């Protein structure tokens, strides 16, 4: 359900009901921690992070507890926004402003040790005033339990290579997704549209080239030799409308090696944003 707040015209709230398996040790540790972190983040009321207004505990059985989370809701997500943008597309200065907000929200999450893990246009909300809000973060463990129960297809298009290779993951995975979204804002269609993990990796390597052996993560299922060598493509072929500074930032988001990928904090100081008022 979603509702307009009749006492606060512009505000919308939405309910997200999650089912939690209560074991013989009661509420799962991951549920308590994930909700606790979201509630702590709530204290800061960051403008680029969706608000969690309440957690309502209801209807328990011995095996299962249903929680209803009351979130701030914004009607439009970035997917809809890009679809609705009239030709020739979203103005470059608007894209720059949105990217800056997106990175501010992400830097806030990362400085509170929250990795989003599933950043994509569907969970980047855009208010009627052009304000960006990150949604659906920090509940990865709760959702993974939900995922197991539902047939929600999780899109791979924004997944970082280290996640597709099932290597370790940390804050850099979110910056890879930001790179994919950055390109999509200009192209108005996804950058890498893979149909499976391996196909997704193939699409990525078609653009950034197959990484060197020393960049390939250790102890992963897929060896680097599984991919036919191919040189990187000129990035301007993929985002012809992006200026030089934007392209240099994009390449830093799409760095294969997570330790060399730019952080949200550093990206906010990139020259691409210098002329942002």
């Amino acid at each position, binding site marked *: 359900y979603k509702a307009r*707040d009749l006492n606060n015209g512009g505000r919308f709230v939405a309910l997200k009901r999650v089912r939690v398996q209560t074991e013989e040790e009661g509420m799962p540790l991951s549920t308590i921690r994930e909700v606790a972190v979201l509630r702590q983040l709530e204290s800061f009321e960051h403008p680029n992070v969706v608000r969690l207004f309440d957690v309502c505990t*209801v209807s328990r059985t011995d095996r299962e507890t249903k929680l209803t989370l009351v979130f701030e809701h914004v009607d439009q997500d970035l997917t809809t926004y890009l679809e609705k943008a009239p030709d020739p597309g979203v103005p470059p200065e608007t894209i720059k402003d949105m990217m800056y907000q997106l990175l501010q929200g992400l830097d806030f999450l990362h400085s509170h040790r929250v990795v989003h893990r599933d950043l994509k246009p569907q969970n980047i909300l855009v208010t009627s005033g052009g304000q960006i809000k990150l949604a659906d973060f920090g509940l990865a463990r709760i959702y993974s339990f939900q995922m197991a129960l539902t047939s929600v297809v999780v899109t791979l298009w924004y997944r970082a290579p280290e996640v597709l290779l099932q290597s370790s993951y940390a804050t850099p995975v979110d910056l890879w997704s930001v790179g994919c979204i950055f390109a999509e804002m200009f192209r108005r269609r996804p950058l890498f549209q893979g149909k499976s993990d391996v196909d997704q990796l193939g699409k990525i390597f078609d653009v950034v080239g197959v990484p060197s052996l020393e960049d390939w993560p250790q102890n992963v299922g897929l060896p680097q030799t599984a991919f036919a060598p191919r040189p990187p493509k000129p990035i301007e072929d993929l985002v012809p409308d992006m200026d030089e500074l934007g392209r240099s930032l994009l390449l830093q988001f799409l760095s294969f090696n997570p330790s060399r990928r730019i952080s949200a904090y550093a990206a906010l100081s990139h020259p691409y944003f210098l002329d942002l008022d």
Partner: protein
Amino acid sequence: LFGPVNHEELKKDLKGRLHEMEEAASAKWNFDFSSHKPLPNGRYNWKT
């Protein structure tokens, strides 16, 4: 630590506290969370 625990009373208290919380949440959001249905005439105009 403070004398024998009255388990019957505990059970009654528990029911009371849980009911209290559900009531407070329903009143705050004019939504019946246990049946997952909106309640009429509140501050929030719910839609599916």
